[in-house]
C-alpha cells in the first residue's frame, strides 16, 4: 500500500511534531515574536507579489539597490555603477565579501540569473528588458547591461521595494518564475530556518552572522541592515481578538496590520504602543469597462462628483480621522509624484445633485449594476456597503452580491455580461508602494484586455507611462505625472477612495520597528 519510503517519512514527520519545530525556543537569546497580517503560503517573492511574501523577502534576501526614506534609490549590494556616455552601457560592481546563507560567495552570474528570473514576472522588469540588448557577468564582481536606448530609471527598476528583486544563487534563480524556488537561500541579514517552518502557523528566521551590512545609516530598504536580534518568530494568528489578547498578555511583541478597533484597548493596556503607517494602501473603486454601463465614460464621470472619500474611510476604519487620509489622487500623498491635477471633484462635500443630473443625461437605462462584496474582508465589505448606498442615492439600481474573497478573486476575471456571472464594480486596495509611481501602479494602465481586471483602454495613459519611464530627470517625471493624473480623472480607470491607515501594535520592549512595511533588521528587543 503506502510505499515504505513515504511511510517512514510520514512517521518521521509524525515524530517530528513531538520534537524539532519548537526546540529553538529553549536556546535563549533575544527573540522578536511577530504576528504577520496573513498566512505566509509562498516563500518566493518573485512567484507571488503578495505583501507578506515581500516582508519575508526583505528578511532573507538582499537587493542590488535599495530605496531610502525619501524614495531615492541607493546602492545596497552594488558598490556603484558607471554609465557610458551614450547611456547604453551600465557597469555595476558588487561589494566584496557578500556571502549566501549556504556559505557560497555571491557572484555576478548569480545576480544575472536572479535579474532574468525577476524580469519575466515584474511589469517594470518587462518594460526594462524590452530595451535590454544583453545582460552579462564579465567577472565575479561585475555585471554589464547593454541597452538599445538610454534608460535612466534602471536603478529604480532594480531597487523598487515591491515586488522586490531578490538575489539568490544561480542554481535556484534558474527555476522558472511560475514555480516556487525549492530552497530559501538568500544573502540577507536573516537566515530562513526550514525545519522549524510549519506552514499556516510558524515561520522562523535566525541571524546570519557572516552578513556584511553597509556603513551608511539604515533608511527604509537602503543603507545599513543589521540583525540586532538572534531569532525572529512569526506566529500566524488568524483571529484578531486572540492576536490582541496575545500582544496584551506579552506573549507576542509586534502585531502588523492590527485591527483598528482594538487601538483604544491596546493603548490602555499600557504595555503596547500603536503606530500609524505613513505609507498606507489606497482604496479604489474599479469599473468593469468592457460591459455596459461603465464602458461609457460619461456614466463613469457621473459617479465622480458623488464620491465622498471621508464616508468610505469611516465605513472602513471608523470615525477617528487619525486612522485614514483623504484627498488622495491617483498617486499616494507621500509619493513624490503626488499632485493636485484634476482633484477638484474630490475636494469639499459630494455634489449628489450634479451626479443625478449627469446620470439622467447619460445613456444609463436603469439596469441593476452588480457590486462584488467580499464579506470575509471586513474593511472592503464596509467600503462596498457605503459605495452601494451612494450609487443608489444618485439613481443607480444596485445588486449587492456577497461572497468570500476566494470567489470574488475568481468572479472578477469573468469578462462576460452580468447575466453570465459578470460584474460592474468592486472595491479593492492597492498595497503600500503600488500607488507611488506610474510603473508600480498596475491599475492606472490603459492596455485594455491585457490590463488589470476592469480592463480600461486608454492609449493616452499608456503613452504618458512610457514618457514617464524615459523622462530624463525628476522634474520631467513630476510634469508627466501631473499630466497623467489629469488624464486619469477624465478616463477614470478607477476612482481613488482614500488611504486607510495601516496600524502596527508594538510592545514597549521593542525599539526600532518600522511603522509600515515590516522589516526585521535594525530592530532590538530589550
Amino acid at each position, binding site marked *: 500500500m503506502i510505499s515504505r519510503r513515504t511511510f517512514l517519512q*510520514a512517521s518521521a514527520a509524525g515524530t517530528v511534531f*513531538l*520534537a524539532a519545530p519548537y*526546540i529553538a*525556543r529553549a536556546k535563549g537569546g533575544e527573540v522578536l515574536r511577530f504576528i504577520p497580517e496573513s498566512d505566509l503560503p*509562498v516563500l518566493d517573492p518573485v512567484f*507571488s507579489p503578495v505583501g507578506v511574501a515581500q516582508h519575508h523577502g526583505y528578511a532573507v534576501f538582499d537587493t542590488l539597490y535599495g530605496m531610502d526614506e525619501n524614495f531615492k534609490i541607493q546602492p545596497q549590494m552594488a558598490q556603484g555603477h558607471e554609465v557610458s556616455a551614450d547611456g547604453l552601457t551600465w557597469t555595476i560592481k558588487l561589494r566584496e565579501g557578500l556571502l549566501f546563507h549556504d556559505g557560497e560567495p555571491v557572484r555576478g552570474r548569480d545576480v544575472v540569473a536572479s535579474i532574468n528570473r525577476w524580469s519575466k514576472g515584474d511589469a517594470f522588469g518587462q518594460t526594462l528588458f524590452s530595451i535590454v540588448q544583453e545582460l552579462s557577468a564579465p567577472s565575479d564582481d561585475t555585471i554589464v547591461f547593454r541597452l538599445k536606448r538610454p534608460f535612466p530609471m534602471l536603478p529604480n527598476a532594480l531597487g523598487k521595494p515591491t515586488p522586490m528583486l531578490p538575489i539568490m544563487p544561480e542554481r535556484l534563480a534558474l527555476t522558472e518564475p511560475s514555480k*516556487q524556488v525549492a530552497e530559501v537561500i538568500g544573502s540577507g541579514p536573516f537566515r530562513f530556518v526550514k525545519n522549524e517552518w510549519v506552514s*499556516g502557523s510558524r515561520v522562523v528566521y535566525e541571524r546570519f552572522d557572516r552578513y556584511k551590512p553597509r556603513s551608511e545609516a539604515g533608511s527604509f530598504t537602503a543603507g545599513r541592515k543589521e540583525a540586532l536580534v538572534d531569532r525572529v518568530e512569526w506566529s500566524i494568528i*488568524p483571529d484578531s481578538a486572540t492576536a490582541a489578547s496575545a500582544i496584551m498578555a506579552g506573549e507576542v511583541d509586534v502585531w502588523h496590520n492590527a485591527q483598528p478597533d482594538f487601538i483604544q484597548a491596546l493603548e490602555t493596556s499600557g504595555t503596547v504602543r500603536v503606530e500609524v503607517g505613513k505609507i498606507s494602501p489606497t482604496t479604489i473603486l474599479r469599473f468593469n469597462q468592457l460591459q455596459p454601463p461603465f464602458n461609457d465614460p460619461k456614466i463613469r464621470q457621473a459617479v465622480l462628483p458623488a464620491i465622498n472619500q471621508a464616508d468610505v474611510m469611516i465605513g472602513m476604519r471608523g470615525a477617528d480621522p487619525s486612522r485614514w487620509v483623504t484627498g488622495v489622487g491617483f498617486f499616494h500623498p507621500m509619493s513624490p509624484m503626488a499632485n493636485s491635477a484634476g482633484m477638484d471633484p474630490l475636494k469639499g462635500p459630494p455634489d449628489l445633485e450634479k451626479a443625478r443630473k449627469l446620470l439622467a443625461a447619460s445613456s444609463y437605462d436603469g439596469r441593476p449594476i452588480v457590486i462584488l462584496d467580499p464579506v470575509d474582508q471586513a474593511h472592503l465589505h464596509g467600503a462596498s456597503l457605503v459605495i452601494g448606498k451612494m450609487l443608489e442615492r444618485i439613481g443607480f439600481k444596485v445588486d449587492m452580491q456577497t461572497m468570500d474573497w476566494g470567489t470574488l478573486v475568481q468572479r472578477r476575471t469573468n469578462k462576460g455580461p452580468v447575466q453570465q456571472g459578470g460584474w460592474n464594480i468592486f472595491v479593492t486596495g492597492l498595497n503600500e508602494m503600488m500607488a507611488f509611481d506610474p510603473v508600480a501602479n498596475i491599475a492606472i494602465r490603459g492596455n485594455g484586455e491585457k490590463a488589470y481586471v476592469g480592463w480600461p483602454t486608454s492609449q493616452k495613459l499608456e503613452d504618458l507611462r512610457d514618457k514617464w519611464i524615459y523622462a530624463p530627470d525628476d522634474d520631467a517625471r513630476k510634469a508627466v505625472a501631473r499630466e497623467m493624473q489629469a488624464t486619469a480623472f477624465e478616463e477614470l480607470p478607477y476612482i481613488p477612495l482614500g488611504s486607510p491607515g495601516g496600524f502596527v501594535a508594538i510592545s514597549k520592549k521593542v525599539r526600532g520597528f518600522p511603522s509600515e512595511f515590516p522589516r526585521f533588521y535594525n530592530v532590538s528587543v530589550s
Partner: protein
Amino acid sequence: MLTYLGRRLIASIFVILMVAIFVFSLLYLTPGDPAAIIAGDQATPEMVARIRQSLKLDEPYLVRFSDWLLQIVQGDLGNSIYTGQPILQQIGLRFGPTLSLMVVSMTLSTLVAIPLGIVAAWKQNSRVDRGLMVFSTLGFSIPVFVVGYLLAYFFGLKLKWLPVQGYAPLSSGLWNWMRHLILPSIALGSAFIGLLARMTRAAMLQVLSQDYVRTAKAKGLGQGEILFRHALKNAAVPITTVVGLGIAGLISGAVVTESVFALPGLGRMTADAILRRDYPVIQSLILLFSLNYLIVNLLVDITYTFFDPRVRY
C-alpha cells in the same frame, strides 16, 4: 476476531473510496480558482494563467481523479497548491496539536460527563438530576467559540494563569504542553460533556430498570456496588458508542477551537484550505478524518468484547 476485522476492513475501504469520490467531485464542480488566490490581488491575468497551467488545473475530471487516486495508494498525498509543500509532511507537522487537543478534551469530558450521568441516573427526577441535566444541556447550547473567548479573557488575559493562545509540543515539557491545552480542551469539551452526560444517564436508567439489578438489590449489595460493579459495566457499551460517534463532532469543534486559540492543528488547516480552494489538501484531510473516524469506531466495537462476553466476532 480476524474474520470480523477482515469484513470491517473491506467495508471501510468501500466507505473511504466513496468519500474520496464525493469530495473530489464536490471540489471539481465548484467555482473558485486557487490560482487566482495564489497570484494575489494585484496579479496580471497572464500570471494567473501561468500558475493555473503549472498546477494542471485544466485537465479533465477522470484524468485528475485517477492520478490523485494512484498517488494516494502510493502514500504520496501530493503537494498543496497554495504552499507547494508536500501535504504528508505538512500533516506530520500539524498533527500534534489536533491529536493533543482531542486526547485532552476527550479525557477531560469523559472524566466529567460519565460520573455526572451516573449521579443523575442514580438520583433520577430529583433536583440534582434536573440541575445536572440543565447544566449539561447549557454546555451543549453555548457556541464553542463564545466559551473559548470567555475562558481566554478571564483565565488568560485577566488572571494570567494560562496562556491566551499558542501550542507547545510535548517535548517542551509536560506542564508547558498541558498549559496550552487546558483552556481549548474545556471549550471544546463543553459541547461534548452535555451530550455524553445525557447519554450516560439514559443508558444507566435503562440498565437500572433491568431484572438483574433487582436481583443484586435482593442480595443485599449496597448502592455503590450495584452502580459500579453491576450497572456501569452493562451501560459501558452504549456509552462507548457515543464516544465513538463523538469523535467526528469533536473534530468539527476543533476547527473552531483551533482558530480561537491559534493552535496550529489540522482543523484550522482544513478550514483555511477550503477557503483558499486548496483542493489536494482538502481531499487529503477529509480522507484522513474519515479514516480516523472508521478506525476509532472499529476500536470502539472491539472494546465491546471486553465489556460484554456475549459479543463475539
